């Protein structure tokens, strides 16, 4: 059981950071020799679920990705054809990749910045904090329902509040929804608007930073900004990282907001045709489930690679308090 003994510097093991130090390692080796069956009892619901509802369906989709499957007739083995078609013959595939990347690159930082900014603001509020917290979370309660999509369209349309407000400060954008360059940003703003979940996680992280640190810094004459840079940012980096990874994964799979705003077709002229929207169109609307499955597996691999890269870079900027404290 090699996973227990080897540890990389920026540990990626499920049981890494909090424990740290050497003494526990001996303790751990002892536990390895302990009975294993209780663990499997704890895991049994998950194992059943993972096997029947996740692993098996995933395996089926992997199999289907090598077939021509129209949902009605038995799947027909075609080898790598779906993959080659995707890479070499389908310009829409690459356009959807581009649109999705644009979305991820814009939406994730924006949403996290928003969530962090509001969390910082809320942290400094004394009275009324819980009211504000709830109120800021309110948009996230709504999901991307049909009515929210309609409201969004109304706000971003010609003469809608957003273009009007931008007009006051001299920016003339016209309506966003019917504009092939701007429609994608209307979708971005819808997701950014619902920043509640990362905000809550940031708030939790901020509260975990010991006030002593700030007091000490204040005594040393550090200003607000200095405190933010040298205390908040490093202390919060694990939480930032956690949010970053989850938001990135979720953004690659963005579906509902774009589906709702574009009415399901990723329009106008494919400008909001995100990866999963295209996957959905191929799989269910056009009944090419084999192709859609191949797309899903490419997405899975891409997300895994990008997540791995994030972890790679995290070593240089994520600061683990536990490791420091354990020393």
């Amino acid at each position: 059981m090699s996973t227990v003994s080897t540890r990389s510097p920026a540990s990626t093991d499920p049981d890494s950071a909090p424990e740290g130090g050497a003494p526990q390692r001996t303790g751990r080796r002892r536990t390895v020799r302990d009975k294993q069956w209780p663990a499997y009892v704890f895991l049994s619901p998950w194992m059943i679920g993972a096997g029947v509802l996740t692993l098996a369906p995933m395996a089926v989709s992997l199999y289907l990705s090598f077939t021509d499957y129209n949902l009605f007739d038995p799947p027909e083995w075609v080898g790598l054809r779906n993959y080659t078609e995707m890479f070499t013959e389908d310009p829409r595939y690459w356009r959807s990749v581009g649109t999705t990347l644009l979305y991820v690159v814009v939406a994730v930082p924006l949403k996290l910045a928003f969530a962090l900014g509001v969390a910082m603001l809320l942290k400094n509020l004394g009275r009324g904090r819980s009211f504000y917290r709830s109120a800021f979370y309110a948009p996230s309660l709504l999901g991307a329902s049909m009515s929210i999509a309609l409201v969004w369209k109304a706000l971003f349309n010609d003469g809608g509040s957003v273009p009007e407000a931008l007009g006051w400060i001299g920016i003339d954008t016209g309506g966003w929804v019917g504009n092939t360059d701007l429609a994608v940003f209307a979708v971005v703003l819808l997701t950014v608007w619902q920043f509640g979940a990362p905000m809550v996680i940031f708030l939790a992280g901020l509260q975990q930073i010991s006030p002593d640190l700030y007091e000490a810094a204040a005594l040393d004459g550090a200003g607000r900004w200095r405190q933010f840079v040298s205390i908040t940012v490093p202390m919060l980096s694990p939480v930032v990282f956690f949010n970053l990874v989850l938001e990135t994964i979720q953004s690659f799979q963005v579906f509902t907001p774009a589906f709702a705003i574009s009415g399901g077709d990723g329009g106008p002229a494919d400008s909001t045709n995100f990866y999963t929207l295209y996957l959905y169109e191929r799989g269910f609307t056009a009944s090419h489930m084999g192709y859609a499955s191949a797309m899903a597996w490419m997405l899975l691999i891409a997300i895994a690679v990008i997540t791995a890269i994030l972890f790679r870079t995290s070593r240089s900027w994520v600061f683990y308090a536990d490791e420091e404290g354990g020393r």
Partner: protein
Amino acid sequence: MNLAVKRRLPHVAAALGLLVLLYPLAWLLATSLKPADEVLTSLDLWPGKLEWSNYTTALEGVSGISVGRLLGNTVLIATGAVIGNVLSCSLAAYAFARLRFRMRGVMFGFMVATLMLPHHVVLIPQYIVFNQLGMVDTYWPLILPKFLATEAFFVFLIVQFMRGLPRELEESARIDGCGPFRTYWSITLPLSRPALITTAIFTFIWTWNDFFTQMIYLFAPEKFTITLALRSFVDTSSMSAYGPMFAMSVISVLPIVLFFFVFQRYLVQGMATSGLKG
């Protein structure tokens, strides 16, 4: 005076930010009171005339199923999902966070990987499973997966939380002769309450808003949820009723807003408090 201004500043900023942020919600609310011809065309926030009949129409429900029934169904599913997620995800998380077993790394990696697969492609295989089990058109496909810890996000969240808990208490419990189950139930679980509350709140909200799964698995209108019924209001291939749809969508979010306002203080407080204080 300067100090007073400084103290007020965050409040002012928060209030202003909120104003912008809640504007779309105000729009939603206002639209739910607009007459039919204004719903989609009017560019004014304020309705030309308050159309309360949107609400009376919405309250009649859909296809003869009352709004009360629809809300009841939704609460039932959401509650089942909450119980399922809290139980099963905390069980799995405890194993991942605290116990040693073969293939742990592999399983954990797999669990995280399931976050990355678009769910549309596993939809049909999953449907086949539930159909074989005779569970289509019951609430099982919506609730059972939660009892089987299929939502990796929460397993992940609770694992992360449990790993932050000090081990001393558990160690001493073990020295006192507590087995893993006793330890889990009477020590780790209570300490993890904050993470569990977070799980519960998110599960409730997300289940409430999850239109897709409900749409696929439910057939009989009397089993429909409020989210599902909301869709029936607008059928683009026939005449639509946008006003009542907006009214119903306001009605449908009220319960989660209420739920959230009651429990939200546990949410943040919970996620922040480290084990001993919780």
